[in-house]
């Protein structure tokens, strides 16, 4: 079941542009709980817009889930959809071979972001979700 999330009490999503580069912005940040044939997922989706005048090869984003006291409950990072190949577990992220498989985001173009947490990897209740761009290449 897909639910377009709205801002509710106790749950806050902060979409932060890459301060270091100001080359991309995150838009339409949403989050939702999904039931994938019995596997419970917390999924964050967003649009990644290249607001610069040059192509962007990949955008790495970090998501943090925090409890009501601000303590970190879970975190993970990942890449825009066109660069998800960099997320594969073997080797270090952005090596030359993998970069050749990445689909760059052209100037003014939009790619998507999709990051999921398995509920079993979260483990504790959380009250806020923050999404931040940590690397633009």
């Amino acid at each position, binding site marked *: 079941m897909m639910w377009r999330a709205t801002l*509710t009490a106790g749950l806050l999503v902060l979409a932060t542009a890459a301060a270091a580069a100001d080359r991309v912005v995150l838009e339409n940040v949403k989050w939702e709980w999904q039931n994938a044939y019995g596997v*419970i997922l917390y999924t964050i989706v967003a649009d990644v817009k290249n607001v610069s005048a040059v192509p962007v090869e990949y955008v790495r984003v970090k998501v943090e889930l925090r409890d009501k006291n601000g303590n970190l409950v879970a975190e993970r990072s990942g890449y825009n959809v066109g660069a998800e190949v960099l997320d594969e577990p073997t080797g270090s992220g952005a090596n030359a071979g993998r970069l050749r498989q990445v689909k760059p985001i052209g100037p003014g173009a939009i790619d998507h972001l999709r990051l999921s947490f398995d*509920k079993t990897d979260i*483990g504790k209740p959380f009250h806020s979700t923050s999404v931040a761009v940590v690397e633009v290449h």
Partner: protein
Amino acid sequence: MVRRGVAVLLLLSVVAGTVLAADKLNLNTATKEQLVALGFTESQALQVIAHRDKSGPFLQVEELLAVPQMKKDLFEAVHDRVTVDE
């Protein structure tokens, strides 16, 4: 007579205070009857209980939307009246 009236008022205020303090239903401990009283159908209430039995305690109220048979309009109606906090 006046003392009895005052005592009744005090008792009522205590009860009311208790009710107000616990006015949100905890999804992780709620019984089928409590969920039904809140507006869930019996089938939906059983799904909520089965969900937490299978995948563990609810981590957010919004997790209700991952429960089979959960309707968005019901979620909108109850989400301010339930909690996952202990």
